[in-house]
């Protein structure tokens, strides 16, 4: 029986890693610009397909119905991850310029709708290029099952988990130590003051959306071998990641990461109990957390300046 719980924990942590990555991507833009990309899910899907296209090109084919079993072997997968990260990062610039900047800081939160609109366009473009089909992506380290005390886990799940943790640690250090991190925190604190200090606020904001896009693209490619790639895969992940971010506290990156992992584990354990309650419980949880702590479990309290 303990193997069952361990299995639930491992499964929860590996999917939680993806939630945490995407939750972090929400937090980055929220702390710096007070806005979020409501179509982050489409970014994740887009990243997965960009990565898949790279894998196919490197394997000398473009037939999405016959992905070679060794398409992810060797350096192809890292190449796909990097390309997807870069490309989706570039899309991040566009969404900032087209959908966020015109509306950020103005009353009415029009950016909620404009980012959703941007996502719909991105998805429509994706449908034209790649079609609606579900495509399998081979894992870079093969499909074998690794056994840990009776619980099984796939290589890619470990890869996702480890790389998610590494990325978050690196990010944490960047935010705390580097000049860029300090600039971002300064902008988060007050764009006006940051600008007086000689920080190029627009550049920092663009940078935040680029980083957020990179994370989304990265998450898309990493999760594709587990979930199979589809243009509709991102919405579910991003919704739960958003939930994790809200639970952890949108303005606290570490809280977001914790929220993402927590959600994955909760989901997995609720599945052990009553699978029909899995997704409902997640969203009921957000409503409860927000009712008690409107800024999330670890979020700093926001005070309206009067």
């Amino acid at each position: 029986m303990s193997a069952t719980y361990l299995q639930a924990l491992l499964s929860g942590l590996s999917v939680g890693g993806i939630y945490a990555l995407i939750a972090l991507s929400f937090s980055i833009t929220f702390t710096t610009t007070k806005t979020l990309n409501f179509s982050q899910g489409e970014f994740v899907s887009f990243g997965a397909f960009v990565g898949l296209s790279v894998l196919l090109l490197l394997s000398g084919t473009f037939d999405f119905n016959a992905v070679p079993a060794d398409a992810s072997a060797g350096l192809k997968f890292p190449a796909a991850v990097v390309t997807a990260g870069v490309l989706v990062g570039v899309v991040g610039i566009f969404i900032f310029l087209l959908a966020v900047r015109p509306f950020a800081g103005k009353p009415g939160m029009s950016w909620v709708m404009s980012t959703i609109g941007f996502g719909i366009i991105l998805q429509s473009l994706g449908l034209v290029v790649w079609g609606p089909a579900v495509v399998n992506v081979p894992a870079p380290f093969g499909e074998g099952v690794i056994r840990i005390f009776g619980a099984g886990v796939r290589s890619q799940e470990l890869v996702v988990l480890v790389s998610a943790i590494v990325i978050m640690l690196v990010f944490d250090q960047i935010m705390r130590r580097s000049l860029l991190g300090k600039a971002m925190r300064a902008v988060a604190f007050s764009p006006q003051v940051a600008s007086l200090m000689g920080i190029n606020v627009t550049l920092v904001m663009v940078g935040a959306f680029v980083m957020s896009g990179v994370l989304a693209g990265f998450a898309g490619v990493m999760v594709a071998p587990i979930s199979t790639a589809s243009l509709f895969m991102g919405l579910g992940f991003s919704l739960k990641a958003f939930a994790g971010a809200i639970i952890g506290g949108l303005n606290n990156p570490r809280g977001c990461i914790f929220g993402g992992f927590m959600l994955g584990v909760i989901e997995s354990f609720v599945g052990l109990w009553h699978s029909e309650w899995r997704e409902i419980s997640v969203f009921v949880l957000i409503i409860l957390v927000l009712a008690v702590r409107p800024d999330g479990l670890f979020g700093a309290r926001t005070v309206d300046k009067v």
Partner: protein
Amino acid sequence: MKHVLLTLAAGLAVAAAAAGISNEFYLRVLFNIGVYYLCAAGMNVLLGYAGQKSLGQAGLFAAGAYAAAILTARYGVDPWLSLVAAMVIAGLCGILIALPSLKVKGPSLAMVTLAFGVVVEKVVSEFTDIFGGAMGIYAIQPLYGPAQPFTMTHWVWFVIALGVVTHLLMRNLLTGRFGRAFLSLQADEIAAGSVGVQVYGYKVLAFVVAAVTCGLAGALIAQQNQYFNSDFITFHLSIFIMLVVLFGGAGSLYGPLLGSVVLVCLGALLARWSWIEHFVNGALLLFALYVMPRGLAGVLSDLRSRFTTKPAVAPAAQAPSGLTPFTVRRGGDALAPDSALLTVTGVSKAYGGVKPARDVSFTLKTGHIHALIGPNGAGKTTMINMLSGIVPPDAGAISFRGETMIGRGVDDICERGLGRTFQNLRLFKDLSVLDNVLLGQHRRMGNGFFSSLLALPRARREEAKALAHGRAVLAFLGLDAYADAPAGSLAYGLQRRVELARALATEPWLLLLDEPAAGLNPRETAELGELLKRIRDRGVTILLVEHHMDLVMAISDHVIVLDYGEKIAEGSPAQVQADPRVMAAYLGTDEEAMDHAVA
């Protein structure tokens, strides 16, 4: 009345045209236009007026649809009764979805509404015993006329009738007291509370209005189709409802109609290339927002105003003479002059290590001008915020006209006769000066939801009274020339005065002014001083936070000095000026400086 007749005529004309259409596809398109108009009309109240982003309207649509479906198909309830029940149930769900909005704002609220939509989607697709899941519910009973169930033409007539009624009701509701209150939420919740708008109550109301119309639309779809399943309820539906409002023109009475006509027709035309429609919707959502931020309705009204010359502005209705008392309807009697109006006893407040108030006590007397002064960071604004209920004190008592103010809401305190202005102007910038002032009258108006919705005589009477009073206040402050200008478009000094007018319109016993002279030139400052004295002479007690010592010393009867959250002195201007502690606070504790100051 003219508008009512025109709307009725338009409705009848479309109904007559519909009678001549035999192609059911066109009838169906008309029906869909009507249904989405209903959704959008309610959503417009929530999104366009109250400014609340709800991404979970599909959940409310589902509430109405499933209520009608289950009641008629499972329990054999009369279809008409079920339709009404569906609206009630959806309205209750609206309260449910609104509750988190009392706690959270902004993106988190959008997320909560989105989560609500997702939960509903999951519930109706997973709890198949009750909701039939994706296999759906059959044999939903359609509405019926005298002889037989509705035909497609009947359905179209019915939604046209509902559309006309909804439009007229929304117009009644939104052009008066309630419309202004909703708009004030969108502009600035804190300011809305400070003029007496019950912020939470109005938010919930906006959610309920949106829920009822969405539920009605859902019930109509379910009853017309006689079958409903969980695939109808998707995130796309929520987005589409929002798009109809935004594209048509949020905050415009005609926006929802324009949006539903254009988008439903577009969908029907693009049916053979559906993927384009998806793309087009995305593009509209993105670009409509900055190409036409006020939607189609905004574009049309701009066009119209370009081609029609504005009639010369009629001189404002004869402003009542300056002698009209502008405290006309507040309850209670004036206290005797010099009696204690507001008593602060041992009030403390701390934000972590910062303590903007430490055991402060003072008394404000009826008919006096009091000033609250102190160096930056002394805790003056925090004190004003505690008095007006925006910030709760950690300890101590505040009593106003003999009642405790601790634990009361901002709007409640306003109702009891405490008005205020803000250090950093909090005007409703997009609203006209007159509307700002009328919002000040909000709490003094007696027309409730139903009398406003139905435009009963009481509502019209109250509106006329408020208008007369608002104009009187504007005349008193010399603002009548700017009544129709958007408040945000005025010069800074005038904006300060509009804020004062808005506070005065709440008919306060006590007026809290947070740096009213900030940014004014010396001449304007002097004028302000005269104005404040005239206000005081009309029976309004004033507490002034100010840095302009000239002004303070010239008009105050009594000065309170705060430093680092502590009251260090109070008394007449002369007494305070002579107090060494005050000088120390202003100039530093340096002995030499103090000597210098005294000299």
